[in-house]
């Protein structure tokens, strides 16, 4: 009973937040709505007894991905007025991209199937363990591919964004420690009246 109520609450907030993402004028507000949508989706996962996915959503999506989005929004110096002006010209393209994404979702959902091993054991094995048992045996290949994808992301990010400043003064700890008193300090005997 309470679970039903909480489900409808979370579901309603998720839909409202998702609408907020695409309708709010300010991109920062969009990202904040997105974080809210992630959070309520995590709540829905908990209701489905998928605690690991819920934790993942909170840690990875809210903690990392949303922050990344926020950085991108802050970094791009977007002129809101010029953005708003081009809506009519960009509408066909936007609709096209939206239709493609919708078709992809429909395609994935039509082919969805629950693994038998998961289905039969779902009641008595904790879901994190169940994910582990399937992910690292049956889906071993996609899992190892994921590491390569992450590697590509890592290298891509460094290649695209790393700029070394030439003029910045850096510490060079070994040489700083290796300095001796003799090379660092010079004692000078100055005669009275000759100091200037």
């Amino acid at each position, binding site marked *: 009973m309470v679970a039903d109520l909480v489900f409808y609450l979370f579901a309603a907030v998720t839909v409202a937040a998702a609408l907020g993402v695409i309708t709010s004028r300010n991109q920062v507000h969009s990202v904040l709505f997105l974080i809210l949508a992630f959070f309520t989706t995590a709540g829905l996962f908990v209701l489905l007894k998928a605690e*690991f996915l819920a934790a993942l959503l909170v840690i990875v999506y809210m903690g990392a991905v949303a922050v*990344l989005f926020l950085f991108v929004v*802050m970094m791009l110096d977007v002129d809101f007025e010029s953005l708003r002006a081009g809506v009519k010209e960009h509408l066909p393209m936007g609709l096209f991209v939206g239709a493609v994404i919708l078709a992809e979702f429909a395609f994935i959902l039509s082919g969805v199937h629950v693994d038998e091993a998961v289905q039969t054991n779902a009641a008595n094995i904790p879901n994190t363990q*169940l994910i582990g048992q399937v992910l*690292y045996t049956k889906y071993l290949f996609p899992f190892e591919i994921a*590491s390569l994808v992450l*590697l590509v992301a*890592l290298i891509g990010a460094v290649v695209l964004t790393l700029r070394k400043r030439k003029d910045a003064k850096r510490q060079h700890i070994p040489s700083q420690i290796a300095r001796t008193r003799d090379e660092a300090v010079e004692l000078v005997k100055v005669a009275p009246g000759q100091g200037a």
Partner: protein
Amino acid sequence: MLENYFPILVFLAMAIGMAVVMQVLSFLLGPRKPDAKKVTQYECGFSPLSAVRIPFDVRFYLIAILFVVFDIEAAFLFPWAVAFKQLGMIGFVEMILFLLVLLVGYAYVWKKGALEWD
């Protein structure tokens, strides 16, 4: 199982309720006499010089994306650790492979100096 989450639900309701009550109360009870000076952006006492939204340095983005990658790597470790006994030696080897690939990335990032600010 869901009963275990009831305290969290109560906590959530309290937190949201408290925030809403405080906002609403201050909205209803607080005096509001806005004038031009009061509602402009505050910039250390002088009139605002420029827009507040200035673009971030791209280096923040690099730090964030490195964090995301290693965050996901850590996330993959959790189900592996929980199902470790069932997976046996094969599971151990494949996780080592997974970590090795990312170790290459880590070495690259370190060598490139992307972990340092300047």
